[in-house]
C-alpha cells in the first residue's frame, strides 16, 4: 500500500483533511449531529474519539504480530470496547455535567466504523509510530469536524460560544434541535464540496 510510504506529517494531514471522517469519508455520522448542539459537547466527544482512536491504533499495531487473522475482529472489538469503557468511566467521574448529556454517545463510540476501519486497514499492518500518527490524524480530523459543526450550531442556535453569550436577539432555535443539526451538516458538507470542486478540482464526496 502506498500509505506506508507517507511521512508522519502526511499521515496526520491525511486524517485531518484528505480522509476526514465526517466530511470526506462520511462515516461515524451519528455524533456529528447528536453532540454538536454546543461547542463544549462537541469538543468533549471529539477528544474522547481522538483518544480512543489513537490508543486503539497503538494497541492494535503493537499486538499485530500476535493476532491470528481469523479472530482479529473480536479482538479489535475487545480492544475498542476496553478503551471506550475507560473513557466512559473517566467522563462519568470527572465531567459529570457533560456526561449527563452525551454519555450515551460516548458509550456508542464502540460502534464507530471509523475506529474499527483504521484498526483493520492501517494499524494491523503498520508499525507503532505511523499508526500513532494515523490515529492522531483521524482523531484530530474528527475533532475539527466536531468543532466546525458545533461552532455554527451553537452560534446560530443560541447566540453563544462555549456557553458565553455573544449575540443578543432571537437566535435560530432550530439549529440546536435535531432538524437544524442535519441541515447544518448537509450545508457544511455541500459547502466543503463546493470549495473542493471550485478550487481544488475535486469531484465532490463519493457519497456512501
Amino acid at each position, binding site marked *: 500500500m502506498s500509505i506506508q510510504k507517507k511521512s508522519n506529517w502526511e499521515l496526520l494531514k491525511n486524517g485531518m483533511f484528505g480522509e476526514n471522517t465526517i466530511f470526506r469519508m462520511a462515516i461515524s455520522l451519528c*455524533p456529528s449531529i*447528536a453532540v454538536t448542539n454546543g461547542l463544549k459537547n462537541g469538543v468533549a466527544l471529539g477528544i474522547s474519539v481522538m483518544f480512543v482512536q489513537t490508543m486503539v491504533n497503538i494497541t492494535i499495531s503493537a499486538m499485530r504480530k500476535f493476532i491470528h487473522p481469523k479472530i482479529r475482529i473480536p479482538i479489535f472489538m475487545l480492544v475498542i*470496547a476496553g478503551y471506550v469503557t475507560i473513557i466512559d468511566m473517566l467522563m462519568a467521574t470527572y465531567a459529570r455535567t457533560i456526561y449527563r448529556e452525551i454519555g450515551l454517545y460516548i458509550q*456508542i463510540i464502540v*460502534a464507530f466504523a471509523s475506529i474499527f476501519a483504521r484498526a483493520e486497514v492501517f494499524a494491523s499492518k503498520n508499525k507503532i509510530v505511523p499508526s500513532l500518527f494515523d490515529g492522531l490524524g483521524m482523531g484530530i480530523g474528527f475533532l475539527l469536524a466536531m468543532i466546525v459543526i458545533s461552532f455554527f450550531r451553537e452560534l446560530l442556535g443560541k447566540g453563544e460560544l462555549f456557553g458565553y453569550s455573544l449575540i443578543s436577539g432571537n437566535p435560530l432555535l432550530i439549529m440546536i434541535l435535531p432538524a437544524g443539526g442535519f*441541515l447544518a451538516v448537509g450545508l457544511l*458538507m*455541500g459547502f466543503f464540496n463546493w470549495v473542493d470542486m471550485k478550487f481544488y478540482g475535486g469531484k465532490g464526496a463519493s*457519497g456512501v
Partner: protein
Amino acid sequence: MDFFKLLELVVAASLINNFVFTRFLGLCIFFGVTKKMETAVGMSITFTAVMVVSAAISWVVYEQIMIPLDLTFLKIIIFIGIVAAFVQSADTIMKKVSPSMYYKLGVYLALITTNCIIIAVPLINAGEHYSFFESMAFGLGSGLGFALALLIMASIREKLEVADVPAPFKGLPISFIIAGLIALAFTGFSGLITL
C-alpha cells in the same frame, strides 16, 4: 392497561423519539443503504428482527447475570459481545436453514454489528431499567421506527435520482438536508405521548 403501556412505548420509540430523526443514531446505515429501495427493505426486515431479539437477550444477561454479579461497568463490552455473537449465529443458522433468505438478507447482517442503534437499544434499556417485555417493546419500536425512516428516505432518494441537484450537494449533503426536513416534520409528533 399494561398492553397499552407497551403499545405507547412502541409508538413513542418509533415515531416520537424516532432513532434517526430525534436521537441521530444509525446514521451511517441510514445514509448508506437508502440509495435503493430494495436494500432499504432488506435492511428494515433484518434490522427489526435483530433488534427485538438482541434486546431480549441483553435484558436477560444484564438483569439476571450482570446485576447480581455486580458487573454492570462491563456493559459496553458485554453488550457488543452479545450483539456480535447473536449476529454471527443468526448468520450461520440462516445460511443452513434458509439459504434463499440468507442470499437476500445475509449481506445486511454483516453491516449490523457496526450500527450504533443495535448497541444503543440495550444500553438505553439498561439505563431505563425497563422490564423484559418493555425492553422488547422498545426494541420493536426502535426497529420499526428505523425501518420507517429507511423506507421514507429510500423512496425520496429514488425520486431525487432524476433531480437536478446542484453538483456539490449531490449524494450525501442533500440526503442530510432531506433528513433535516424530515426531522422538522417529525417535530410535529413531539408531545404526542409523554411517558
